[in-house]
C-alpha cells in the first residue's frame, strides 16, 4: 500500500507528479491511499508514505491532452474518491490512450460528471457571489462571503482579477480567503460569514430592480429553482424577496385582468374594426385559398347577445356578410317570430372562410374539420373578448364544438345553458340550414317551431340577464 499526501484539496500539481511516479512504479490503483494534508493515517499505518521508485525498464509516457484538462477540473471535486478514480483512468490510458474517447464508459462518465459539477460550481460562483462595499483607510474595499461546494476558490480567482482588477476586493470562504489590492493576489486563512459586512448601500436599489423586473403574469418557480437552487439563496440579498413575490403574483395577475374587464369598453368598436381588418388577411388554415374573402362577424361591439353559426355559405362568401343567404333569411324570420331583436345581436361564424367542393358550376358546402375549427377559434375568442356578450348562442354542432371545445349532440344539449371556459353563458340549438334540409313539410314545420321556441327562451333568458 502506498500513501500519497497532497498539499491541499486542489493540489492538482501534487497529484500529477505523484500519479506519474506511481504509474512508473507500476502501483495498481487499489494499492494507493490518497490523503490531503498531514493528518495521521491510522487506517493505513502500514502504508509506505511517498512514491516508490520507478520499476526497472519503465518508460516515460504521455497521456492525451483531453485527459489533462479533464483531470484539472475533476480534481477540484469534493468527492474524496476523485484522486483514485483519476489515477485508475490514468493507468488505463497509459496502455490505451484512445480510450478517453469512449465517453459511454462508466469510469469516464463518472469523471466527466464530476468535472461538469465542478464547472457548474465555478460558474455559479461567478454568478451568485455578491460584493459588499466597506470604507477602509485606503478607500473602498469590496468584500464577499461565499460557500462553494467544491474546491474551486483558487481556480476561480483569475476571473475576479480579470473583471475587478482596478478595485480592491476580498473573497472569504470556509476554505481560504483571497485578497486583491489592485496589483497582486494574497491568500489568507479561512473566513466566517460574520467577517464580511452584512449590508451595502446599493442593495436597496438592487432589490427594487429585482422585484420590478419580475413579471407576475408568468410565474415559473420551477424554472427559477432549477438554475438558482435554494442552497445559494442565503448569500444573495435579492433572494429574500422571492417568497413574497411568488405569493403576490397570482393576485396581481388577476387584478390586471379584472381591471381590464371592468374598464369601460370605450374603443371596443375600434378594436373590432381593427380585428376585422386583420382577419381579412387570415392565413391560419388553408381555407382562405379557394374562398373569395373572410366573412367576419357583424353587429354592435357592445351586443349583449352573440350568435355563432357554422361557416359562411356560397352567398355569404360572395357578399362578405354573415347570414345573408337562404339560411340567414330563415334565421331572420325565426328571430322575428320569436321576438328577438337582431339589431342588438352580434352574428358571426365558427369558421370564417367558405369551405366547399366544386361540383360543376356549383360550390357545394363542405363541413369544416376540427383542425379548421381549431385554427379559426382564435378569431371567435378575440371577438368574444371584445364584445363580451351576456349570452352566446351556438347554432349547430360546429359552433358548439368551437365554443365548448368538445363534440356535442344538439338533441341532448339544447334547451339548457352551458357554462363556457371564459365564464360566459351559452345556449345550444340547431343551425337554420338544418331546417332547410328537411324534405317533409310537416317535420320541417315542427322543427321550425322548436327552433323559434328555443330562440324565444333565449330571448327571455337574455332579458333576465340584462335586466
Amino acid at each position, binding site marked *: 500500500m502506498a500513501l500519497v499526501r497532497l498539499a491541499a484539496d486542489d493540489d492538482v500539481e501534487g497529484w500529477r507528479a505523484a500519479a506519474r511516479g506511481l504509474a512508473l512504479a507500476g502501483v495498481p490503483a487499489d494499492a494507493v491511499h490518497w490523503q490531503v494534508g498531514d493528518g495521521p493515517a491510522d487506517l493505513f499505518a502500514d502504508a509506505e508514505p511517498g512514491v516508490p521508485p520507478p520499476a526497472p525498464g519503465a518508460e516515460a509516457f504521455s497521456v492525451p491532452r483531453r485527459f489533462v484538462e479533464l483531470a484539472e477540473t475533476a480534481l477540484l471535486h469534493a468527492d474524496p474518491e476523485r484522486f483514485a478514480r483519476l489515477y485508475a483512468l490514468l493507468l488505463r490510458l497509459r496502455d490505451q490512450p484512445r480510450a478517453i*474517447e*469512449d*465517453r*459511454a*464508459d462508466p469510469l469516464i*462518465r463518472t469523471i466527466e460528471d464530476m468535472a461538469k459539477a465542478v464547472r457548474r460550481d465555478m460558474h455559479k460562483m*461567478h*454568478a*451568485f*457571489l455578491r*460584493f*459588499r462595499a466597506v470604507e477602509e483607510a485606503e478607500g473602498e474595499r*469590496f468584500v464577499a462571503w461565499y460557500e462553494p461546494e467544491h474546491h474551486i476558490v483558487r481556480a476561480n480567482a483569475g*476571473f475576479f482579477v*480579470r473583471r*475587478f*482588477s482596478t478595485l480592491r476586493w476580498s473573497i472569504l470562504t470556509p476554505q481560504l480567503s483571497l485578497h486583491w489590492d489592485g496589483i497582486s493576489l494574497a491568500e489568507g486563512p479561512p473566513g466566517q460569514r460574520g467577517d464580511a459586512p452584512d449590508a451595502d448601500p*446599493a442593495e*436597496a*436599489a438592487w432589490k*427594487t*430592480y429585482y422585484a*420590478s*423586473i*419580475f*413579471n*407576475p*403574469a*408568468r*410565474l*415559473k*418557480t420551477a*424554472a*427559477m429553482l432549477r438554475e438558482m437552487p435554494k442552497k445559494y439563496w442565503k448569500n*444573495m440579498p*435579492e433572494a429574500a424577496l422571492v417568497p413574497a*413575490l411568488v405569493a403576490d403574483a397570482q393576485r396581481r395577475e388577476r387584478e*390586471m385582468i379584472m*381591471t*381590464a374587464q371592468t374598464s369601460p369598453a370605450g*374603443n371596443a368598436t*375600434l*378594436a373590432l374594426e*381593427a380585428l376585422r*381588418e*386583420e382577419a381579412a*388577411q387570415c392565413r*391560419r388554415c*388553408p381555407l382562405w385559398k379557394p374562398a373569395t374573402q373572410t366573412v367576419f362577424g357583424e353587429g354592435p361591439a357592445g351586443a349583449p347577445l352573440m350568435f355563432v353559426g357554422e361557416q359562411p355559405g356560397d352567398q355569404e362568401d360572395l357578399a362578405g356578410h354573415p347570414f345573408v343567404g337562404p339560411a340567414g333569411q330563415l334565421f331572420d324570420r325565426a328571430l322575428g317570430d320569436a321576438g328577438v331583436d337582431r339589431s342588438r345581436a352580434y352574428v358571426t361564424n365558427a369558421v370564417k372562410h367558405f369551405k366547399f367542393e366544386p361540383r360543376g358550376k356549383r360550390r357545394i358546402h363542405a363541413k369544416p*374539420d376540427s*383542425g379548421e375549427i*381549431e*385554427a379559426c377559434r*382564435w*378569431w371567435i375568442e*378575440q371577438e368574444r*373578448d*371584445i364584445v363580451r356578450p351576456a349570452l352566446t348562442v351556438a347554432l349547430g354542432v360546429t359552433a358548439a364544438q368551437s365554443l365548448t371545445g368538445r363534440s356535442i349532440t344538439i338533441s*341532448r344539449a339544447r334547451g339548457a345553458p352551458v357554462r363556457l371556459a*371564459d365564464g360566459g353563458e351559452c345556449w345550444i340549438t340547431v343551425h337554420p340550414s338544418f331546417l332547410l334540409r328537411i324534405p317533409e313539410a310537416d317535420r320541417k314545420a315542427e322543427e321550425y317551431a322548436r327552433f323559434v321556441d328555443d330562440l324565444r327562451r333565449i330571448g327571455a333568458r337574455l332579458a333576465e340577464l340584462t335586466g
Partner: protein
Amino acid sequence: MAQLDLRAKLGILADAAKYDASCASSGTRKRSSEGQAKGIGSTEGMGICHAYAPDGRCISLLKILLTNSCIFDCHYCINRKSSNVRRARFTPAEVVELTLSFYRRNYIEGLFLSSGIIRSSDYTMEQLVEVARSLREDHHFRGYIHLKTIPDADPLLIEAAGRHADRLSINVELPTESGLARLAPEKSAPRIEGAMAGVRHKIEDRQDARRRYRSAPGFAPAGQSTQMIIGADAATDRDIMTKAHGLYDRHALRRVYYSAFSPIPDASAVLPLKRPPLIREHRLYQSDWMLRFYGYSLADISAAADPASGMLPLDMDPKLAWALRFREHFPVDVNRAPREALLRVPGLGVKAVNGILAARRWRRLRLEDIARLTRSVVKLRPFLIAEDWRPVRLGDRLEVAPPPPRQQLELFAA
C-alpha cells in the same frame, strides 16, 4: 431624498422593460481589465446569469428603459401613449452610475438599455448612444452593453451605437404584417426589416475590415437580435417559424426571442386579455433550436405542426411530433447512423450525439452505454437500435406519445 427618487425611477423603468425577453450576455469579444490602469469589467465569451426571477427568466443585464414616455401608441405595450402608467426618465449620467454601482458588486454582466420614443427617433437614439459612449469612453467599462435600436434613427447614430455596444436589437414586435397594422399602427414592417438589413451590412463590413486591420473599430461584435410577441395576433406557429427563419436568413440574426403576450396593467381594449399558454412559447424555442442546431429545415418544422391549424402540439416537443409523423425514419441504429439521423432522435441532444459518435469509434454501443450519455433512455428506446436492443415497430408503441389526459366522464350530462 435624491436616492429615494432614483429608486422610485428604477422601479418604474425596470417594470417598463420587463416585457423584453432578451437577456443574453454571451458571444461577444473577450475583454479583460487585468493590467489596465483604469476602468472595470470583462467578458469571457460565456454569458452569466447573475440571478433568476420567479418568472424563471435570467437576470444577466441591468435591463431598463431610459424613459417610459412614448409618442407611439402600440396596443400591446404598457408604455404606449394612451396608457395610464406612471412615467419616469433617467438622465444618461444616472444610468451610467447605476450600471457601474451594480457591476462593482457583481450583480450584473452589463447594461441592456432601451427607451420609449420621445420627441423624435433621432433624439431618443442620441440619448441611448450617450449612455453607452460615457460608459465606454469616460469610465472604460468593459462589460456587456446591449442597445435597443430605433428603426428610423439616423445611420450615423446607429453607427455610433454599434461602436460602443456588444449587441444591437430591433424588435419586429409581431410576426404578421396585419398584426402589426392592428396593434402597432405607427410601426412599419418594411422599415424595421430595412434597419435590420442595415445593421447586418455594417456588422459584416466591419468583421471583414477587422480581419485585415486589427485596429479597425468593431461593430456590435455580439451581433443583432430581435423579439416577437406571441399570441397577440393571429399568427400560427407555422407563420411564426416561417418569419423567424426568414429573419435568420435575411439578416443573419444571432437570436430571435419569442415572448408570450403577457397581460399588462391598463391594457388597451384592442388586445386579448388572456395570455397564451406559456408552453407555446417553449415549443417555439424548441423549434428554433431545431432549425439552428439540429439540421431541421423550415419544411420539417411545418410538417411537425398540425396540417390544418398550423399549430405545434402543446403536449409534446416538436422533435417528438416530427418523429411521430415520420415514423419510417426510425428506429435509428446508434452504431451506424450518420450524425444527422442521430440528431433527429427525440431525446438525443447535440452533446449526447457527439458522445455517441466518439464512443462508437471505440466499440459497439449497448443500451446501457446510451443510458450513461443521456438523461432518459426509456423515452429514447423506441427510436433506437443498439447492440443489444431492437425495438418493436414504432407504430405499435403507445408509450412514445404522451397519454391523453384523462377526463372524468359526466354522469348527468345534459
